[in-house]
């Protein structure tokens, strides 16, 4: 479930937890551990944690049901 934090890159600053508009992260400021994605189902997939992370440690995994349905453009033509 989104987002995915790379613990090897995370600097444990808590920026993602501070900035997330859905409050999905849990970050213990005293322990300064890698934030936990505590409420993943509340993610809006807005990308703000990805953009704000100073270590570039976060990626979004878009859930399978959010698939963007598409067809090759060249199939949009009259059928014989």
């Amino acid at each position, binding site marked *: 479930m989104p987002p995915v934090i790379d613990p090897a890159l995370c600097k444990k600053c808590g920026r993602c937890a*501070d*900035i*997330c*508009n*859905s*409050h999905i992260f849990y970050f213990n400021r005293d322990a300064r551990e890698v934030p936990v994605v*505590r*409420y993943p*189902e*509340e*993610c*809006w*997939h*807005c*990308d*703000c944690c*990805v*953009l*704000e992370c100073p270590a570039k440690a976060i990626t*979004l995994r*878009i*859930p399978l*049901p*959010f*698939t*963007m*349905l*598409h*067809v*090759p*453009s*060249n*199939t*949009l*033509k*009259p*059928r014989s």
Partner: protein
Amino acid sequence: MIPISARYDCDFAIVGGGIGGLMAGIAAKDAGAERVIIFEKCHPLRSGSGAMGNDHFRCWLEEEHGPLEDLVRQTLASPIGQVRDPLLLRQSLEKSFDIVKMWDEWGIEMRPTGKYEFMGHAFPGKPRPTLKYNGTKQKKVLTDQAKKRGVEILNHHPVLELFKQEGRIAGLLALDMTKEEPSFVLVRSKTVLLSTGHTSRLYITGPTPAYMFNTSHCPNNAGGQALGWRIGAKLVNMEIPYRHAGPKFFARSGKGTWIGVYRYPDGRPIGPFATKPDIYYGDITGDVWNTAFSDVLRDGSGPAYQDCSGATPEQLAFQRKAFFSEGLSAMVNYMDDKKLDPAENAFEFMPYEPTLHGRGIEINERAETSVPGLFAAGDMVGNGGAGIHPAAYFGMIGGQNAAADARNLDFLPLEENEQVQERMAFYSSFAERKVGPDWREANFALQQIMSDYAPAGPERVRTENILNAGIAYLEQMRQEMFETAIAPNSHTLMRLAEVIDLSDCGLAIMHAAKARQESRAYHRRADFRFTNPLLAEKQLNVFLENGEVKTEYRNKWK
């Protein structure tokens, strides 16, 4: 009882740090207000539907559009204009370019092509009403401007309740959710502005019913209209459903940023407005016929696709840049990851579930609500229009007027207000209870009632019997929620408070829908199938008076 961790007194309290709230803070300080505090549910840099960016700013420039009245008429005739009071539209458009110039000066990129250019959301051959801009830095710039002036911002402080005393606004109760354990913050304020954004999560999510947060606009804006409703502020246009449309199944706003043509599977355009990609006009079919994408599935002629394949490489590069300006980086990254090139793929679109977008609190030309001292701005306003330009304008006007009013007001005693104790005990009960439904259960329970008993057209209808049943079921659900729900920490209490607000909005919608005895736009009454011309120039208010829901028509303000 949840403890009170802080008390504040201020001239002006702002609920929500979005475009409207930040502009209100900036304007109030410029107008001489002393202490101004923004209570922000999250963080103003990334909150609300403008969190990641926007790329269209509706505004009037005489050399582009001709006389102001022409653009007013054009806007009023469009789907987004039908719910507005002409007086407020005219007033906001008249000053819109002043805001553009101000934002440009502050560092928001209002001329991404090097000059002011109007693009998108336009009918072929007609004046283009929206300025193309790059809003990726808009929240940072506005936050910096607010802070520079001394506006205080309390992050992670959603507002639970407003209080009225002696007939006017007296203060508010906020939730401090900076810690796991919730605490209350009690605020006496001479004036208050609501700017909580538009409301999502009232209806079962259109694209993915199991994912409540797959919404076109910010899903954390949920029910702020109820804060005004509970103290008697009049709401307007609650019964007229708004449905956005966009990619299926990844819900995103920004359909005007795409430059393709909406086409049937046989390649024919679904609308009459575009036959090839055009960065200046786009295909406005999706604006004027939001439900086209489900209509063509119901009649068997679909699906309908957004097809950009006829665009030049330069146009596609322009569109890609514009996606970022609009805040769609997550969608672009997804498309890159899946190798979905718009030059070669057509994307199916769909209409999303109804939201309160430009439906809600009624304001006057001062941006003041029917409760003295309470102002409102942004997408939660029901008669001023939704989007960036009205949020910015009415936020600014509200801030100026609140600052002026506050100079002549004293603080009202809040501790003696019986409602303060009652509401603190009410919210504390959820934290004290150990077993019961959580906010998710409550939100799903609400969504299924709203989706079945206050549904939106064109495919679903309302009747007096259906609405009466819905009101009864919603009251039952609310009572059970009030008596049994649990919220073990500050996060879940915030969410449960949202659902309580949403359920108030649901009641307002149903009562207003019952009172509007005609069909209009996506409010379809099977027992009143016609659109009544006598109601075309009227607005329907719904509000609480001594605990009773009231409705009444008024003439549109010209």
